[in-house]
């Protein structure tokens, strides 16, 4: 519970500090304190992970402990995912600062509320991940979504940003409406709003799960599928990714997706595991549809952010294979994939945020032409990321896909594994097309990377992607404990 409390208090206090400080230095101070705070929390959690199992010895009196443990579970799984979320938001803030400071965004985005909103979103995600009851989950989800609606529309003077915000809001509201109705049906048939209660009602041998619970589950899955932008609920992603300010898109693509997936994992494992053969076909359809649509639709893209949106959908397809096989090692594979995906996306966004062609912020892929001549190191780092995203062996992206396919094949889901393989070939095409643009084409625009911080994050993620192939085990063990706890309940 510590993380949430610290986050909440710091968000509020930063809000006050921001108000107190003079306008010019407010944002920078607030943002740097936020980053330092988040990173320190990550450090503490990493240390704490070493001390597991985290038994919640209640030195508080029984009432408060009742209060805390009824709706939230602070187990190894929640810890693992929180580390990812906090790290992601810290990085997003760090690489975003340069971006929101640059010219067109400065007027509307360069304000301390931006940081506070992101902190609120992170808080929402942490709550969401460690929720143990439908209500806690809903409130956490709402907190995160609202923060992101605001953030998406935050660039007030830009029509595209407000349109993105509006679209995201409208569809987000619809999805939370679906979610609520689903929860009400779940509550109606399982008589309790805790996951444990739902699980208990499912395990009771009296009768097969009532259809109300099934439809409730379907509606909930639909809403979460919307959050992780799986096909056919993905329609919002490309428009919001293109419209919203890039630093927010970075946050959306990494932290929010990880939180939503962790939420889905906890829901499927802790609440709906007995209904496995009901939701496995649904997840498989989602997976296959996302893989192929994501892969195919990315081919004609020319805007780098829309490109990232569609390729993210393809990645979600691959991750959902892990969900479809629903075994402990498939979930471990998913966690590993999330971790790898996060590092790659952060590196990629660090690059996108720093893209300037003749002073102007640019999102055109074609501007990358001939980057290998002008900025060899950045081009090399980006091509490493691209190859790793495509899942080519000498990089860690391959291992991520490898474990997912291993889990899928172990549960005889051969068809999905083959689809995954084919989709990753299609996706390899557009990833190496970017490498082609950088290395093979002659330089037209004079693309320049602005901001040393972004450049360091880019190099760090490229080195991580290469380094992790040598020792992927250090990520795998941590995932191991998280999953054991999840499946133990």
């Amino acid at each position: 519970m510590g993380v949430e409390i610290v986050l909440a208090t710091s968000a509020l206090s930063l809000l006050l500090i921001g108000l107190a400080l003079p306008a010019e230095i407010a944002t920078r101070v607030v943002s740097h304190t936020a980053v330092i705070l988040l990173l320190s929390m990550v450090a503490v959690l990493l240390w704490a992970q070493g001390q597991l199992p985290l038994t919640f010895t209640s030195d508080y009196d029984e009432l408060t402990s009742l209060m805390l443990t009824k709706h939230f579970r602070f187990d190894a799984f929640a810890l693992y995912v929180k580390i990812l979320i906090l790290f992601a938001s810290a990085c997003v803030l760090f690489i975003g600062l340069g971006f929101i400071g640059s010219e067109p965004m400065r007027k509307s985005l360069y304000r301390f509320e931006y940081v506070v909103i992101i902190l609120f979103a992170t808080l929402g995600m942490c709550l969401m991940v460690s929720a143990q009851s439908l209500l806690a989950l809903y409130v956490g989800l709402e907190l995160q979504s609202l923060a992101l609606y605001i953030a998406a529309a935050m660039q007030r003077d830009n029509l595209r940003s407000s349109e993105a915000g509006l679209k995201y809001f409208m569809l987000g509201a619809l999805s939370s409406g679906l979610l609520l109705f689903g929860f009400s049906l779940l509550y109606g048939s399982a008589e309790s709003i805790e996951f444990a209660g739902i699980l208990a009602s499912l395990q009771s041998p009296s009768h097969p799960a009532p259809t109300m619970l099934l439809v409730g589950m379907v509606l909930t899955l639909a809403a979460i599928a919307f959050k992780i932008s799986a096909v056919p609920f993905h329609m919002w992603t490309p428009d919001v990714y293109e419209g919203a300010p890039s630093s927010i898109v970075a946050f959306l693509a990494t932290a929010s997706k990880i939180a939503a997936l962790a939420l889905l994992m906890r829901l499927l494992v802790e609440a709906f595991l007995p209904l496995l053969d009901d939701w496995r076909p649904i997840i498989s359809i989602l997976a296959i549809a996302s893989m192929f649509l994501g892969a195919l639709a990315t081919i004609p893209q020319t805007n780098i952010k829309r490109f990232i949106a569609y390729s993210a959908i393809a990645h979600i397809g691959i991750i959902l294979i892990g969900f479809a096989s629903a075994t402990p090692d498939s979930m471990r594979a998913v966690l590993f994939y999330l971790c790898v995906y996060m590092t790659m996306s952060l590196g990629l966004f660090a690059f996108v945020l720093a893209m300037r062609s003749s002073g102007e912020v640019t999102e055109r892929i074609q501007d990358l032409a001939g980057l290998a001549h002008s900025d060899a190191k950045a081009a090399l780092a980006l091509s490493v990321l691209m190859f790793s995203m495509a899942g080519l062996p000498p990089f860690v992206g391959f291992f991520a896909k490898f474990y997912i396919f291993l889990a899928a094949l172990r549960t005889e889901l051969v068809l999905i594994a083959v689809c995954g393989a084919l989709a990753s070939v299609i996706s390899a095409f557009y990833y190496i097309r970017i490498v082609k643009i950088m290395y093979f084409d002659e330089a037209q625009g004079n693309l320049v990377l602005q901001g040393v911080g972004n450049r360091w994050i880019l190099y760090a993620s490229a080195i991580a992607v290469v380094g992790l192939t040598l020792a992927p085990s250090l990520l795998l063990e941590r995932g191991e404990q998280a999953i054991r706890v999840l499946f133990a309940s």
Partner: protein
Amino acid sequence: MPSLLSSLLPVSLAHYLFLSTSLFVIGLIGLFLNRRHVIVILMSVELLFLAASMNFIAFSAALGDLSGQVFALFILATAAAEVTIGLAILVVYYRNRASIAIHDISDLKG
């Protein structure tokens, strides 16, 4: 007539479910069918939330467990927050676009 009436009384859980579901569907249709302006969308979202909370209250009454009502309470709170944000974004969009007809919101596509 009598069978209809007998099915009407006594007022059981099913009746409320019928009501909330139809409200839910109307809300969805509102979202989907209208071609006018965004306000209708916000209102239909409100309808969705109303349907959900009604569902919760009905189940809470049927199961005799208060947590449904607590849930409805929180739905109320979040719905309020959501509408404020929605309208704020709408205002910003209006300032940029001077029109909130659904048909105009299509700059981002492809």
